[in-house]
């Protein structure tokens, strides 16, 4: 809390002092002009905080003392090797799917914004199909690809000429099918986010680049996308967190990610609630960790637009110093 010493003076006070001092008089020391006021009190903040703390404490107490929850099971399985493997696989799927879908998204956004009517229509159709059908159905569809095409071959269409031919289930095991489903679906959403970012860049930037003789591709990568990133990154952070949670949907095609592993364990020991708590704790931990790179990406692409943001650590330290000063 401040000690009540406010340095911004009320105008009337200042005028009155000036008049009293008369013209040409030496300027009075700042201190005499300062208003000394008792800071505004906020009693409702304390009331609301008290009610919330009480409610949360009650909730935790009910969970802690609940005889239906075996706390030792949570502790046992939190770092179980199977669970850890599941965490690793969920993270791996998230990272690969986000990276590949972002590249596809840029491609689709550029096609959608291009003057080529064929590319434009294709990008529109892609987004229409993959955004318009449920992700769960897309996952099952890729999982069942073997039912639709038992063999996958590369060759010239409508002829017998083939370069190679493989069994679908060998080429596309459950893991690959799940990765495909998440990536292709995400590309549709990312494309729209990236397109909106590109549209947010001032048209004058295109003209400046053009007048300097920059090619369309060079303009895209060096002028437009770096500026679009500022608009693209916050929603893409959201998408990354969604993706991490969506990997749990891959349980329907038995990919051994975090949620699948947990359900397998709980189907044997019948401790469903405990394992759900374990899984939730991991998802919460991972989504928290994922917001760190987002902060640094925003900081990097925000350069030139505002005062350089501090690093995360120095920002936390600064907050603590300011708080201790009050």
């Amino acid at each position, binding site marked *: 809390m401040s000690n009540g010493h406010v340095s911004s003076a009320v105008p009337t006070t200042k005028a009155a002092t000036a008049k009293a001092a008369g013209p040409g008089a030496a300027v009075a020391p700042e201190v005499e002009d300062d208003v000394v006021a008792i800071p505004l009190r906020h009693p409702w903040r304390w009331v609301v905080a008290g009610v919330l703390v009480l409610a949360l404490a009650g909730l935790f107490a009910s969970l802690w003392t609940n005889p239906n929850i075996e706390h030792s099971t949570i502790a046992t399985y939190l770092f179980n090797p199977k669970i850890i493997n599941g965490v690793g696989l969920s993270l791996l799927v998230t990272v690969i799917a986000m990276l590949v879908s972002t590249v596809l998204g840029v491609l689709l956004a550029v096609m959608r914004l291009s003057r080529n009517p064929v590319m434009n229509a294709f990008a529109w159709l892609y987004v229409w199909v993959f955004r318009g059908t449920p992700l769960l159905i897309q996952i099952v569809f890729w999982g069942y690809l073997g039912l639709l095409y038992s063999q996958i071959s590369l060759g010239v269409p409508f002829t017998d000429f083939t370069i190679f031919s493989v069994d679908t289930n060998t080429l596309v095991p459950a893991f690959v099918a799940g990765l495909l489903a998440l990536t292709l679906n995400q590309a549709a959403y990312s494309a729209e986010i990236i397109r909106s970012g590109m549209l947010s860049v*001032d048209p*004058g*930037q295109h*003209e*400046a*680049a*053009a*007048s*300097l*003789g*920059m*090619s*369309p591709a*060079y303009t895209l990568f*060096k*002028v437009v996308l*770096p*500026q679009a990133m500022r608009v693209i990154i916050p929603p893409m952070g959201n998408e990354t967190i969604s993706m991490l949670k969506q990997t749990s949907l891959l349980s329907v095609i038995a990919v051994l990610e975090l949620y699948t592993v947990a359900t397998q364990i709980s189907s044997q020991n019948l401790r469903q609630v405990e394992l759900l708590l374990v899984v939730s704790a991991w998802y919460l931990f991972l989504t928290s960790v994922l917001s760190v790179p987002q902060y640094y990406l925003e900081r990097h*692409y925000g*350069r*030139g*637009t*505002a005062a350089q943001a501090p690093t995360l650590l120095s920002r936390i330290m600064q907050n603590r110093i300011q708080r201790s000063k009050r």
Partner: protein
Amino acid sequence: MTETLVRASNVRKSYGHVEVLKGVSLTVKPGEVMCLLGPSGSGKSTFLRCINHLERINGGRIEVGGDLVGYARRHGKIFEMNPREVSRQRRGIGMVFQRFNLFPHMTALENIMAAPVGVKKVERSAAKARAYELLERVGLSHVAGHYPAQLSGGQQQRVAIARALAMDPELLLFDEPTSALDPELVGDVLDVMRQLAADGMTMIVVTHEIGFARSVADTVVFMDGGVVVEAGSPAEVLDNPQNPRTVAFLNSVM
């Protein structure tokens, strides 16, 4: 008369049903400074943007250095240029915009280096040295590491001029370069342009600065309603205008 750098003949441009340019013809010699004056909506900025093909003309022709703008002659036929050919043609024509259009994510120095490094493939160290030299020339070497947002409007516009100069253009186009500036910052930008003119740069300047036109321009062109109303030396057009529309315009701005 010596050679001609820019030759525009009967240039027409329409947006939908609105004809903005109704047959503009003029020529610019190497080293010449031409000022385009006229009320807003007279088509002067549109005409300027046609010269480097930012706008596509609907009729007539524009030649810069003997080459058609936006079209290539091959085997006696005229082909529309592809984007790569258009980009190559624009390298020789610099442009300075009313709203500066600096790249906000690059420092002043990086703004100037971007095109030489990325387009002309000049080595980074050489481009950097040249960029410093150009910043020095516009009096801004002390802000080389600043981002555009940290510069005043006048400083941004001078960086923009340096950026255009970095491509060694044979022609510089200025689209109302001082219209977005606070009055006290206009002088610095005009001084830089005056120096360029003295160094022999060919310039076409769309402006409302009559004083600049009078002291720097070789030719003053007055446009209104999409046509050239009057053209000649500053003494002829500014001090002894013949057309009543020119007289009315000059009375309203002076």
